[in-house]
């Protein structure tokens, strides 16, 4: 990978050092950054090939590929950072297709002047998240842009996974009569970011739910139940995800506000900032649509998993030519839970 000879170069200074333009120039400085930081953190046989691309063995089964760009601000937030988020985000996009995630490609846009120590924290966090999830970062790229042309670091990850035989998950499979489940409390990630940005402090701090969901999903697939749709409700929250599914499947939905799990501290923070938790991003939650008869079994399977303790049945699918997602309010009325308009929270993931 690198032609830099050890001992001839001073090691990267992760205490005081900063990213400069040479780290993206293709020269020795870049080679050193790749070797001392990325290659050592992500170490695996494919990355060790040292080529421009990773040569991978063909897996048995259908492939899923997904990509996700991460631009979250702040880079470090309660419960995680852009590093683990960039791994979880892409794993989850692959996993909700029913796939076992295998490999990840990571591309970094670094801003000149960014502290190398922070970059190391981020890369280490990515490596730890990948290890824990059993995926390998097999190839990558680094670019540096002048100060002011980025905000610290942006990370784009692309994941590949393989779907077992017989699994067919798709947003167009929701049918009238189906049940709508969520794996836990909503809005944790977005409000963790917002409370940090707005300097809100609570007795119990709000912590991001960022997590890789493929383990939870595998436990649902193991039940043998016909899962129709899985989605992770990230940007735009539950409301956006359900509207997407309703449109894709050509159905309507009716939710029960009282059944939707939201942590009291998240509800309070939303109230304070004038936000609706149904539109706030999650990074470790799952929306499941299944036949009504299978709902209890899947709920039990979710609740048995550490990431699904607070799983709940929140609504049903019905026929509706307009594809409205409606909700019975706890107050006793009824309303639409519409598509998000404009931008509720920028730079959340």
């Amino acid at each position, binding site marked *: 990978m690198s032609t830099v000879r050890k001992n001839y170069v001073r090691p990267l200074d992760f205490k005081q050092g900063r990213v400069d333009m040479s780290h993206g120039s293709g020269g020795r400085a870049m080679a050193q950054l790749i070797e001392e930081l990325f290659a050592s953190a992500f170490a695996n046989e494919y990355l060790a090939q040292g080529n421009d691309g990773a040569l991978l063995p063909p897996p048995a089964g259908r492939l899923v590929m997904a990509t996700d760009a991460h631009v979250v601000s702040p880079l470090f937030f309660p419960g995680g950072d852009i590093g683990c988020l960039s791994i979880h985000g892409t794993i989850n996009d692959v996993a909700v297709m029913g796939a076992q995630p295998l490999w990840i490609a990571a591309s970094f846009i670094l801003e000149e002047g960014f502290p190398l120590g922070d970059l190391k924290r981020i890369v280490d966090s990515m490596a730890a998240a990948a290890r824990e999830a059993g995926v390998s970062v097999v190839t990558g790229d680094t670019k540096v842009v002048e100060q002011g042309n980025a905000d610290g670091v942006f990370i784009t990850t692309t994941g590949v996974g393989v779907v077992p035989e017989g699994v067919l998950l798709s947003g167009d499979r929701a049918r009238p009569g189906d049940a709508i489940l969520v794996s836990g409390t909503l809005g944790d990630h977005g409000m963790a970011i917002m409370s940090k940005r*707005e300097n809100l402090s609570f007795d119990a701090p709000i912590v991001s739910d960022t997590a890789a969901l493929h383990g939870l999903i595998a436990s649902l697939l193991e039940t043998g139940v016909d899962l129709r749709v899985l989605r992770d409700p990230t940007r735009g929250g539950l409301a956006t995800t359900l509207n997407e599914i309703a449109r894709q499947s050509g159905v309507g939905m009716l939710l029960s506000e009282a059944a939707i799990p939201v942590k009291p501290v998240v509800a309070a923070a939303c*109230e304070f900032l004038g936000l609706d938790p149904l539109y706030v991003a999650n990074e470790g939650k799952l929306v499941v649509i299944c036949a009504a008869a299978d709902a209890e079994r899947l709920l039990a399977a979710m609740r048995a998993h550490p990431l699904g303790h607070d799983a709940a049945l929140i609504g049903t699918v019905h*026929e509706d030519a307009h594809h*409205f997602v409606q909700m019975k309010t706890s*107050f*006793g*009325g009824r*309303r*639409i839970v519409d598509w998000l308009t404009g931008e509720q929270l920028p730079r959340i993931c």
Partner: protein
Amino acid sequence: MKYVDEFRDGEVAKGLAVAIAAEAKPSRNYSFMEFCGGHTHAISRYGVADLLPANVRMIHGPGCPVCVLPIGRIDLAIRLALDRGVILATYGDTLRVPASGGLSLLKAKARGGDIRMVYSTADALKIARENPQREVVFLAIGFETTTPPTALAIREARRQGLKNFSVLCNHVLTPSAITHILESPEVRQYGTVPLDGFIGPAHVSTVIGSRPYEHFAEEYRKPVVIAGFEPLDVMQAIRMLVRQVNEGRAEVENEFSRAVTRDGNLKAQALVSEVFELRRSFEWRGLGEVPYSALQIRAGFAEFDAERRYQLTYVPVPDNKACECGAILRGVKKPQDCKIFGTVCTPENPMGSCMVSSEGACAAHYTYGRYKDFPSEATA
């Protein structure tokens, strides 16, 4: 959530719904206007209308600050940002209000205008302190609730000796708007807008108190019940209005007694009158020119007045011809009566101002209630 959930309790709501249905006489209709966008939003978001009997109808009023801001005023702000290169700071909803030439502040930002969303006037002052080499203009909008913070910012700017901060003032007054509606031909000549009473503002009344409404209650024989912005507040206020109508009373009653007094916040009132004075006339979107309905910065604070500082001249711009915002803001039409509602005009692409803010009558109906326009979907 303590102190919030108590005011959104579904069981209490059911009880109130039964009481309203029992007290409302089946022989007549009741039409009440909620003046404030905050009430409009609560009614739509919690589904309050679903709990009311068919003969009790709510009319959405003009009390949404973003909705009543005329195109010409936004144009002034856009020109300041694009032509004069100022940093323009304003509250979030204002960014999306459609202005002339297909622009909005958000679109002007994409064209290179330095336009920043702030949560408070303190943030705007901070921007001015941190950018001493730049001119910073705060686009101030809102009713009596947001006026004291603007006054405070102007006083603070003087105290801190800020030379690069000014305010484009668009603060408007609730009582003059209510009078204007009561004086409108649609209400006076009966028929078009049957108005049996008002739900009075919540936050505005914490500042101005309940006294200013006594005049209309007496003069126009319309009951006013000041109510909080929680859905149970609204239900309780409706019940109180029904009672007043039934008993032939036209008084100012205060449901929001946990926050509103008869005199209001005297300190805030003093601050406002130190910095602001009445404007002879101001254009409201939908209502047109309304005499003595807005505030301007006093000559003593002229250096902080963007209109004087940049010698701005106001040019009125007519609304889109198809847009019914005017009639909707006066309660003459409902959002769904507008031809472009939900087709050309949507929250993503608002033509009229009522579609912009979540407090606007059109946006509230579109976002929360449009399924009711399709009877088959309302029963699913």
